[in-house]
């Protein structure tokens, strides 16, 4: 049984910003850095948040889609399509037989998908995903992305892409909330500190700042 504590890939970079810490899924996660109202306002203009604490898994294999269906989830119909996980979370089809799942601050959908506590059937393989995960939010998020990535994020059909941000291979999903642009950004954990510091520097130049997870999961951060 896992009893060890987890740490965000950006933990040390976050620590330097003197946050108010909370706990999410056994990981110290930033609840907020400043006044919650101020951070809420930032989310509409430009905000960057670490959400690495959310659970994640990668499912691969010829029977992966069938396995997902058996868990009662909708299978994204085409590559780069995504579906919401009931109760919170995302399921993204990243290949013909490859699915990336990210859960919410509560619930065990991702753990069930990964086969924790059970045996996965033949043809389904789960792999840990320890990504550095960030949310870039607000109208000015386009400016930050324009300085770091060659993809046109303003085009209306923008959904999920894999591209490079500031030279790092990332997965990016646009999922606007409250009519404000919101981008999920995932990258390899080892690049987390670099990418966080780079995006934060550019965000601050554009008038944005770091915010805590409470902005996006207001009641769930303990």
């Amino acid at each position, binding site marked *: 049984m896992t009893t060890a504590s987890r740490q965000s890939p950006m933990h040390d970079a976050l620590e330097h910003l003197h946050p108010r810490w909370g706990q999410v899924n056994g990981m110290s996660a930033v609840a907020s850095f400043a006044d919650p109202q101020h951070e809420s306002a930032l989310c509409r203009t430009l905000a960057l948040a670490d959400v690495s604490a959310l659970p994640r898994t990668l499912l691969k294999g010829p029977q992966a889609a069938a396995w997902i269906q058996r868990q009662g989830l909708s299978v994204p119909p085409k590559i780069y399509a995504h579906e919401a996980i009931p109760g919170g979370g995302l399921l993204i089809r990243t290949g013909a037989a490859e699915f990336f799942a990210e859960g919410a601050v509560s619930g065990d959908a991702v753990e069930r998908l990964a086969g924790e506590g059970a045996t996965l059937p033949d043809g389904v393989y789960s792999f840990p995903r*320890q990504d550095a995960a960030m949310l870039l939010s607000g109208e000015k998020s386009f400016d930050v992305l324009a300085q770091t990535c060659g993809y046109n994020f303003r085009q209306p059909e923008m959904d999920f892409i894999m591209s490079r941000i500031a030279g790092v291979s990332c997965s990016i999903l646009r999922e606007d909330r409250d009519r404000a642009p919101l981008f999920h950004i995932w990258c*390899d954990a080892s690049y987390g500190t670099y990418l966080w510091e780079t995006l934060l520097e550019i965000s601050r130049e554009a008038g944005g700042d770091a915010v805590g997870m409470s902005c996006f999961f207001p009641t769930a951060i303990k």
Partner: protein
Amino acid sequence: MIRDRLPPQPREWIDRGRTIDFQFEGGSCTGFAGDCISSALWASGVRMLGRSFKYHRPRGIYSLANHDVNDVVEDGVTTNIRADVTQICSGASYQAVNTFGGLKKDSARHIEHLSRMLPVGFYYKAFHTPRKLFPYWERKMRAMAGLGAINPKLPRARTPKDYDFCDVLVVGAGPAGLSASIAAAETGASVLVVDENLHPGGTLGYQWNSDASAARRFAQLMGKISSMPNVWIRTATEAAGLYADNWVALIDSVRLTKLRAGAVIVAAGCFEQPAVFKNNDLPGVMLASAAQRLIARYAVKPFQRGIVLVANSDGYCAAQDLLRAGVQLAAIVDLRKSPESPELVQPFNAARVPIFQQHAIYQARHASGKQGIIGAVICPIDDAGKTVTERAFKLECDGIAVSVGWMPADGLINQAGGKMKYSEQLHQYLPESLPEKVFAAGRVNGVYHLEAQLADGRRAGLAAAAAVGRNNGPVPEQARHEGPSPNHPYPVFPHPKGKAFVDLDEDVQYKDIVNAVQEGFDSIELIKRYTTIGMGPSQGKLANMNGVRILAKTRHQTVTQTGTTTSRPFYHPVPFGHLAGRSFHPHRLTAMHSRHQKAGAQFMPAGAWHRPAYYPAAGQGRDDAILAEVKTVRQGVGLIDVGTLGKIEVCGPDAAEFLERLYTGRFAKMRPGTTRYLLMCDESGVVIDDGVAGRLAEDRFYVTATTTGADAVYREMQRWAIIWGSSVTLANVTGQYAAMNLAGPYSRSILANLTDIKLDQDAFPYLGIREGVVAGAPARLMRVGFVGELGYEIHVPSQFGGHVWDRIMQQGAGFGIKPFGVEAQRILRLEKGHIIIGQDTDGLSSPYEAGMDWAVKMDKPFFVGQRSLQIIQKRPLQRALVGFTLPTDYAGPIPKECHLVIRGDQITGRVTSVAFSPSLNRVLGLAYVAKDQSGLGTKFTIRVDGRKEVEAEVVKTPFYDPDSRRQSETVEKPREAAA
């Protein structure tokens, strides 16, 4: 400031409510907000703004459009500031570039007196002999050359660089560009308009300054654009280069924007061209459009009493503007027999301004020190365009405005692959063919009348919109210029004495081109390189056309036959800082990075990773720290972060078969729970990677790869899986797992207290792999022996890495555990004779050369590289990797990696790894030697630094613990002090 300031102009750019104080060459100056440096100085009566590149001749305003580099300054931080287009800053202190001792007292001004000794191409002919003096001359030349000085001590300015996208890019916000943008935007296309000027309008803002109908037109255009949400205008932004697929580099004062446009409309207008006559470069001589810019944009009187040299109606318009600005016109000198319209001359007849038809300016007469002009020598010209000097006469003036023709700003068209053709009717280049989705509009098309420009812009806008799928409607025919050409075919009037400049940037004179032709440099490309015409910062904007004309005439050719030079990016020089942008340097940190920092690690790069090289104690040197770490692992226990290792999961029914085909070893019969060394070759049989395969289940392997090879190995796996149609599922989990190697005699004792995995020799033998929990975290453990001691490689999901590292260090405190770095690991593995791929192998190393025969199973049906190895196997080996030692009492210089193995005058190999071994108390290493030098006990020579030679002896590897008892068996000693 007020000396030459005019009353408010209709569309002036200055804010008369805000004055700005600044310094120029140490003197105090004042201008209005919105003034450029040149206009503020000119308004204050300052006429000499710079010195020329070669002869250090005084220079003043010439184009006021950044089409020349007469007026370049620096402010102590930034150099290469174009004074013609850079707004004054409060408190700034500007210095002209390219002077020695200041602008007025420039000691290099005397160079002009030596100009006879500095003919065209002099630097190709002189200074080569005597050879020993060349470095002296080179230093002198380097000191003299260049415009401005870079201060390397200044902090780097990190400039943002960004990407942008649009359906239609319009280059140029003049009448054609604005009209094009409206037409394109009306179809629904997203349109970006860029213009290098601070304000939109182009010629509408200065050539039609006093034309009320043009002003209304401009207001209509801007009003329309401001109401269109899909049009953006970026001023002070130049389109610096156009690349494949309409990738356009946009440059503004702070950033480079990489713009991807669906279609591009080049409505960049024209460069007004100079006339060539003696002293045509001195302050006071300027293009008529520069005079109009001074008046319209900055409300500055260009001069008090002027002459206007014209060859088109634009010149008469400029003369009218000068009259309105209160300039006394000494004369209008028209190169033509008559103007195109009698109405043009009427205002001047009324003002009693003499007009000399079919006359030219033969010479500008300079003031003392050449810091201005005091008059001009006017000559009639004959029907062949030659000056009739016998009938020359003088007129007094302090300024000459030149309006003899235009040349299209067609750089982007050329860069895009478009073809320009010289029109003998219009005497300018016109687009002959344009690439797909690139369009030209306005004066670039040779369309000069305002209404025609607007119509041509509309046509281009609709055509561009159609090209990006936004317009299905009709596209009008292209408008053509009607009436006489605005361009004189040969505005060149040489003088037998004195300097008549063709290229003001490079101080290239008329006679330089003629002389170059006489020396045999008779093609335009050769002329360019030999005379440097067009090679200055302006890239020939004002020089190329006249240069081609002079060459054509000298060679009795047409302009078309003469050709032109290649137009390359950039349109204007671009600061390196813009190109560099933020300089993203992605780097990877392991999950335990902060632990290493706290432990005082010295880091080293390993690919993109930052890895601890060693951990010096306070006051401890590098070598002592590394040797102490080696000793700790051999005698106690150490912990190293190996999270950078590549980690790949290979799953599926064909997993074992896949590894059999990909690697040189056998894996099909591996039992779950075991590991095996693996070696990868490419198809030519060259060793490219190695690692360990651990079998977790019948259909699941956990494979490691080298730190720098992980991504390449994963790509190769994906490629081969597709080619072979293997039923495998691959996942690169390098970053998903943290990994550490707990090594040393006490490793088991420490780990036993942290895991539920049975660690005794029978339950978990050498080369085993187990899954379980370590310090509360899910873990994979491998018993491998890279460093040659009892050890456990512990892999945990990376978010647990820090926690598990901390727990092991806590648990090991009583055992004297210490972290060790890559440098100690290199020595430890060298003592064991383990090779590092990429260090002990190179791009040609076969497994046989590297002594890895044992890892190659040639009797397998197939593996990548097998066929090549079958051929290699049959050939005699040319070299072999051997272990060597130096004598135990050796005290000379220690060889270094890459030092050569020498036999006589032949190089027979090189050292690949070498170190002092604290365990064996001697220097040992690995080296490639000739095959006949590889026998045990053979002595060979290594040439070390200083060409000294060291004798080494081939010995058997492993050097240390040759039976590998320490890593494969229990040699643990009880430790009383254990926690």
